C-alpha cells in the first residue's frame, strides 16, 4: 500500500474557489483603481496647498522679523545737543528761568553761515 500521507493528500482534487469570490476580488481591485483615480487630483491639490501655506508662512515670518528688528538708523539714540548760553543779559534769564506764562520753549531758528 502507498503509505506516504503527503502523496495520498496530493492525489486528491482540491475544492476550488467559487465564481462569487472571483467577482468579489475583481470588484475590489476595480474599486481600488477607481479610488486611486479620484485620489490623484486630491493629492495634487494637497501639494498646491502645502506650497501656498509655506509661502504665506514665509511671508508672515519675513514681515514680522522686519517689524521687530529696529531700523539701525532709527534705533540709534539721538546725539545729545549741548548748548552753551553765552548771553549774560535778559535773554539768559528768559532762557533759564522763563516766566511761568512763557514756559513754552522759545522757537529758535538757526542759520549757519557757510564759507
Amino acid at each position, binding site marked *: *500500500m*502507498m*503509505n506516504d*500521507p*503527503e*502523496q*495520498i*493528500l*496530493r*492525489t*486528491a*482534487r*482540491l*475544492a*476550488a*474557489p*467559487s465564481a*462569487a*469570490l*472571483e467577482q*468579489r*476580488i475583481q470588484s*475590489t*481591485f476595480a474599486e*481600488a*483603481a477607481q*479610488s*486611486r483615480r479620484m485620489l490623484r487630483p486630491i493629492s495634487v491639490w494637497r501639494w498646491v496647498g502645502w506650497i501656498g501655506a509655506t509661502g504665506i508662512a514665509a511671508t508672515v515670518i519675513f514681515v514680522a522679523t522686519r517689524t521687530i528688528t529696529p531700523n539701525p538708523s532709527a534705533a540709534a539714540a539721538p546725539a545729545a545737543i549741548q548748548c552753551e548760553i553765552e548771553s549774560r543779559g535778559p535773554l539768559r534769564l528768559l532762557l533759564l528761568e522763563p516766566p511761568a506764562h512763557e514756559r513754552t520753549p522759545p522757537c529758535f531758528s538757526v542759520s549757519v553761515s557757510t564759507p
Partner: protein
Amino acid sequence: MNSSVAEKLRAVYVESRQSLYTYAVSITRQREAAEDAIHRAFQQLLRHDTLPADLRPYVFRCVRNAALDDLRRARVRSDSIFDDAFDPAGGVARQRTFSTAELNQWLNRLSPDERETIVLKTYETFALQEIADLRGVPLPTVASWYRRGLAKLKTMMAHET
C-alpha cells in the same frame, strides 16, 4: 495605494488563488468563511502604499490573520479542502481508494498547527523555513508539527486499510 501595489497583488492573487483558498479553508474549515477571509485580506492589502519584497508569504499571512479572525466567531465547521464532487477518487492507495471525506476527517483530527503546516507544505509547496517565517515561530517547531502531523495521518490511514 499606488498602481504597482495593485498590479503586484493581482499577480499574487492570480498565481495563488487556489493555494490561498485551500489554506484559508484549512483554517476556517468553512468555504464561505475562507472566501470572506481572502476578500477581506485583499481589501486590506489594497490600502497599502508599499508592499514587502517577498510578497507571497506576506499575502498568505494576511489571509491567515483574516481567517483566524473569522475562526474566533464560533460556528460549526466541517467543510473540506477537497472537492466533494471528486469522491470517491481521493488519495489512491495500492489496495484501496480513500474518499475525500476520509482525508478531510483525518486532516480535521490533526491539531490546527499540524494541519496548517501539512497543507502549506503539501499543497502550497512552502519550505519549512518559509512556513516558520510565515507563522513567526522557530523552524524546529514547524518541523515538529509537520513530522507529528504526518505520523498521525500515517497511523490513521494504516488503521483504515
